[in-house]
C-alpha cells in the first residue's frame, strides 16, 4: 500500500462549478492508502505545484492522484512536479474530472458523485503503481541508405550535409537508379541527367558518404539507434580503388553479345562494362554470367589492356558488418511485366514497347542516340499510339495488374507525346486514357499544352487489341465520347506499364521487421502525420518504396526522411517510454503468439535455463521484449494466454483495480 496524496483542482469554476471539490477531497481521504487530501484553485499553477511538492515532502507520499483536467493536458506537468520533489514521475495518476466530468454534466450532485468515483479509480490504480525508469540506449551516429536512386541519393546528401556519415547500398554497379535512365523530366522538361548526375557526383565525392555499389544488405539485427547490418559486396572482379574508369577494357572485351540492361535489352554491351558514362563510382564490372575468362579460363583480354592492373579474376564476395543508428529504405520501383497482357502483343512485336523503353529510345545516350526509330526495322515511326493504365487500376484479385493508380504515367505519357510531336511534327500521336490525372504544380497546364499546342490526340477510351499486321500494328480501340470503335494502323505502340515495388523490398522488410501492405509497398507509421517513418522505430522511408511517386515528390520525401534521421542521430541517447511490455519468464510458454501480434518486432525468443521447483534445471524458450523498440500498445498482453506478458503502467491488476473501483 502506498502513502497517497490526493489533490483536487477547482480549475477556477471550470471544475468547481459542477463538482463539489471539497466533498471530493473529503470523500477520497477515506480511500485505502490516502494519507493526505486537499483542494486548490489551480493545481497547475506554480503555487499549486509548490503545494504538491511540499505535501510530498511533508507526508512522505509514495504516490499522488491529481483530480483535474485531462491527462492529455497536464500529465507531463505533474510528472515533472513529482520528479522535482523526488518522487518517481510514474507514481502520478490523473483523474479527469474536467473534460470527462464537470464539462459534460450539469448537475452538481451527479458531477460530484462521478468525480469521486473517478478519483477512487485513480487511487486504486496508483496503489499498484511501481516506479518506472525509462531505458536509455546509445545512438550510433551513422545512417544507412538502402537504394541509390534519386530518393537514396537525396536522403544521403541531406544527412551527410548535416555532418553525419552515411552509407549507400546499391545493388547495381552504379547509383542513379531509374532517373538515370530517363530522358527529360516533367513538367519543366529539363534533362534528367543534367539534374541527376551532379547529385551523383556530389554523393560520390562527399566526405561523409560511402557508396557500396554492387552490394546488398543480407542481415539486419538490433533496433533503433543500434542496428547491426551485414552488407554483401558482390565480387565485381575489378578493384574499385584501382580502376580509373578509362573504359578501355569495355571496348576491347571480345564478348559483345550481352543484353544491355541499362537500355532494357534494346542493345548489347560487353561482358566487362560501365553501365553509362556518368556512372558513380565510375568503375568497370565483369558480368560473371558472360565473361569467358571466368567461365572457361580462356581470354583475359581486359586484364592485358588494363594499364592500372585493376582486374582481379579471383575476387570473391565480401561481407562487411557495420553499425548504424538509422536505416532509410529507398528501394524504389520497377515497371511490371507485360508478358501477361497478350492483347497488347508486347511479346509478339518489337514495336510494342513500355514507356521506360521509350525513354531510352529518345535518350541521346540510348541505343538509337536519341533518334526515335522503330526497334524492329530502325525506321521512323509515323503513327504512335500510347496506352495508359496498362496494369494499373485493375481489380484487386487480378493476377495481371495492380489495384492502385501508378500515379506517374499520365504525366510522363503527356511528356512523351509532347516531345514526339515537338521533334517530329510529321507524326500522329494518339493517347488512349481512362482519366487524365494531373494534380501537381504546373501539371495540368503541361498536359493541356500537349493537347492544345502540340496537337496530341487524346482519346477517352481504351485499346482493346493490338495485332501485328505486316509492318504495321493494327490497333483496335474505343472512343467513348464519339461512340465509335477506332482502328488505327500504328508504327509504334507505347504501354504505360504499372509500377510495382522492387522485388528486393519484401525480403528487406522481413529483415527490418518493417510492415508492408498487400502490394509490397512499405507502410508508413501514420498515413498522414508520419509519412516518412516506418512503424518500426529507426527505419525511415524514402521514395517509391512507400508508394508510387514522381521525382519532385520523391525528392521532398527524401529530404523529409533525412530530417527525421538527422533528428534521431543528433541525440546521444534515446530515452524510451517506460510503459512497455514485459514478459514474466517463469510463466512464459514461448509459444510465439505475442510475437505475431507485435507491430514493431519488439519480441524475440531466447532459450534459457531455469531452475525448477524440484531442483532440476530446464531449458525453456521464453519471450524477451526489446524495451527500446516496444511502443507499449499492449496487443501482446491480450494475446498471451498465461498472462506472462504485462504492460508496465497499464498492468492487468491496475486496470482491474480501476474496473473494481468504478463498479463498486
Amino acid at each position, binding site marked *: 500500500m502506498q502513502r497517497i496524496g490526493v489533490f483536487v483542482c477547482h480549475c477556477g469554476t471550470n471544475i468547481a462549478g459542477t463538482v463539489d471539490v471539497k466533498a471530493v477531497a473529503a470523500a477520497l481521504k477515506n480511500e485505502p492508502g490516502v494519507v493526505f487530501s486537499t483542494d486548490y484553485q489551480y493545481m497547475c499553477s506554480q503555487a499549486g505545484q509548490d503545494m504538491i511538492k511540499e505535501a510530498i515532502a511533508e507526508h512522505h507520499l509514495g504516490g499522488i492522484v491529481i483530480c483535474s483536467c485531462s491527462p492529455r493536458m497536464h500529465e507531463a506537468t505533474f510528472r515533472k512536479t513529482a520528479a522535482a520533489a523526488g518522487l518517481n514521475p510514474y507514481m502520478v495518476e490523473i483523474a479527469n474530472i474536467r473534460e470527462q466530468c464537470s464539462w459534460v454534466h450539469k448537475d452538481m450532485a451527479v458531477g460530484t458523485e462521478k468525480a469521486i468515483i473517478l478519483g477512487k479509480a485513480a487511487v486504486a490504480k496508483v496503489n499498484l503503481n511501481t516506479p518506472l525508469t525509462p531505458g536509455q540506449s546509445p545512438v550510433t551516429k551513422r545512417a544507412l541508405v538502402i537504394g541509390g536512386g534519386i530518393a537514396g541519393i537525396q536522403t544521403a546528401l541531406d544527412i551527410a550535409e548535416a555532418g553525419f556519415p552515411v552509407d549507400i547500398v546499391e545493388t547495381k554497379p552504379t547509383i542513379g537508379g531509374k532517373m538515370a535512365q530517363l530522358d527529360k523530366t516533367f513538367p519543366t522538361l529539363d534533362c534528367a541527367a543534367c539534374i541527376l548526375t551532379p547529385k551523383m557526383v556530389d554523393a560520390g565525392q562527399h566526405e561523409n558518404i560511402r557508396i557500396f555499389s554492387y552490394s546488398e544488405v543480407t542481415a539486419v539485427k538490433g533496433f533503433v539507434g543500434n542496428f547491426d547490418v551485414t552488407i554483401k559486396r558482390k565480387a565485381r572482379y575489378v578493384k574499385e580503388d584501382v580502376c580509373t574508369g578509362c573504359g578501355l577494357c569495355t571496348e576491347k572485351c571480345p564478348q559483345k553479345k550481352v543484353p544491355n540492361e541499362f537500355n532494357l535489352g534494346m542493345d548489347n554491351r560487353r561482358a566487362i562494362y560501365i553501365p553509362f558514362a556518368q556512372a558513380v563510382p565510375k568503375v568497370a564490372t565483369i558480368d560473371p554470367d558472360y565473361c569467358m575468362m571466368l567461365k572457361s579460363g580462356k581470354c583475359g583480354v581486359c586484364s592485358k589492356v588494363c594499364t592500372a592492373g585493376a582486374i582481379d579474376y579471383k575476387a570473391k564476395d565480401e561481407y562487411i558488418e557495420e553499425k548504424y543508428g538509422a536505416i532509410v529504405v529507398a528501394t524504389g520501383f520497377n515497371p511490371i511485366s507485360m508478358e501477361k497482357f497478350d*492483347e497488347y502483343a508486347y511479346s509478339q512485336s518489337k514495336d510494342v514497347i513500355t514507356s521506360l523503353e521509350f525513354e531510352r529510345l529518345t535518350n541521346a545516350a540510348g541505343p538509337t542516340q536519341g533518334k526515335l526509330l522503330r526497334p524492329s526495322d530502325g525506321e521512323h515511326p509515323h503513327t504512335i499510339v500510347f496506352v495508359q*493504365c496498362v496494369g494499373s*487500376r*485493375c*481489380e484487386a*484479385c*487480378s493476377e*495481371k*495488374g495492380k489495384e492502385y493508380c501508378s500515379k506517374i504515367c499520365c504525366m510522363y505519357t503527356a511528356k512523351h507525346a509532347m516531345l514526339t510531336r515537338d521533334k517530329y511534327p510529321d507524326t500522329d500521336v494518339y493517347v488512349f486514357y*481512362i482519366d487524365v490525372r494531373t494534380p501537381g504544380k504546373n501539371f495540368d497546364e503541361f498536359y493541356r499544352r500537349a493537347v492544345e499546342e502540340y496537337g496530341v490526340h487524346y482519346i*477517352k*477510351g*481504351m*485499346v*482493346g*487489341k493490338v495485332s501485328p499486321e505486316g509492318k504495321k500494328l493494327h490497333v*483496335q*480501340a*474505343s472512343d*467513348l465520347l464519339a*461512340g465509335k*470503335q477506332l482502328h488505327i494502323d500504328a508504327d509504334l505502340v507505347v504501354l504505360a506499364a504499372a509500377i510495382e515495388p522492387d522485388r528486393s523490398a519484401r525480403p528487406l522488410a522481413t529483415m527490418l521487421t518493417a510492415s508492408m501492405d498487400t502490394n509490397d509497398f512499405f507502410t508508413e507509421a501514420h498515413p498522414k502525420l508520419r509519412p516518412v517513418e516506418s512503424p518500426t522505430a529507426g527505419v525511415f522511408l524514402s521514395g517509391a518504396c512507400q508508394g508510387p511517386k514522381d521525382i519532385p515528390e520523391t525528392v521532398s520525401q527524401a529530404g523529409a526522411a533525412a530530417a527525421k534521421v538527422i533528428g534521431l542521430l543528433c541525440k546521444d541517447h534515446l530515452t524510451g517510454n517506460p510503459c512497455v511490455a514485459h514478459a514474466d519468464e517463469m510463466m512464459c510458454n514461448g509459444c510465439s503468439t505475442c510475437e505475431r501480434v507485435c507491430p514493431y518486432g519488439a519480441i524475440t525468443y531466447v532459450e534459457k535455463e531455469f531452475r525448477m521447483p524440484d531442483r532440476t534445471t530446464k531449458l525453456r524458450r521464453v519471450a524477451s521484449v526489446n524495451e527500446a523498440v516496444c511502443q507499449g500498445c499492449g496487443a501482446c498482453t491480450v494475446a498471451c494466454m498465461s498472462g506472462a506478458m504485462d504492460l508496465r503502467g497499464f498492468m492487468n491488476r491496475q486496470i482491474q483495480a480501476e474496473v473494481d473501483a468504478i463498479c463498486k
Partner: protein
Amino acid sequence: MQNKNERRREQILRISGVNPLKCMRCGKCSATCPSYDEMEYHPHEFVYMVETGDLEPLIHSASIYQCLSCMACVERCPRGVEPGKLIEALRLTVIREKDGNHMTADTIPAVIDDETPQQAIVSALRKYTK
C-alpha cells in the same frame, strides 16, 4: 412500373453476378468487341445503362442478339466487371419474359453463310438451344 424495372434489374444482376459499380468506364470492353459496328448499344453502354436502370432501350435493341458472347470483354476487363455476362443475362431475361426466343436452334443453319464467324455459329447454337 418503377418496381417492375427495378425487379428486372435485380434479376439481371443476380443471373449475371455482375456488379456494374465496379466499372471505371475505361471502355476496354468496347475496344475489344468484335461486333461493335453491328451493335446499337455497346458493351460499356450495357454496363452503364444497367447501372442506371435504363433497361427499356436495351431490351428492345437488337444488340442483345448481336453479341457473339465471345467473352473477350470479360477476359480483358481490368476491373472484372464481365460485360458479356451482363448482356447474356439481359437476353435471358427477355426470353423469360416473352416466353420465346429470338430464333430457334433449327433456324440457325438457314442464316449461316460463309461470312459468319465460327464463334457466332457456336455461340448461336449454345444460346438458342436453351
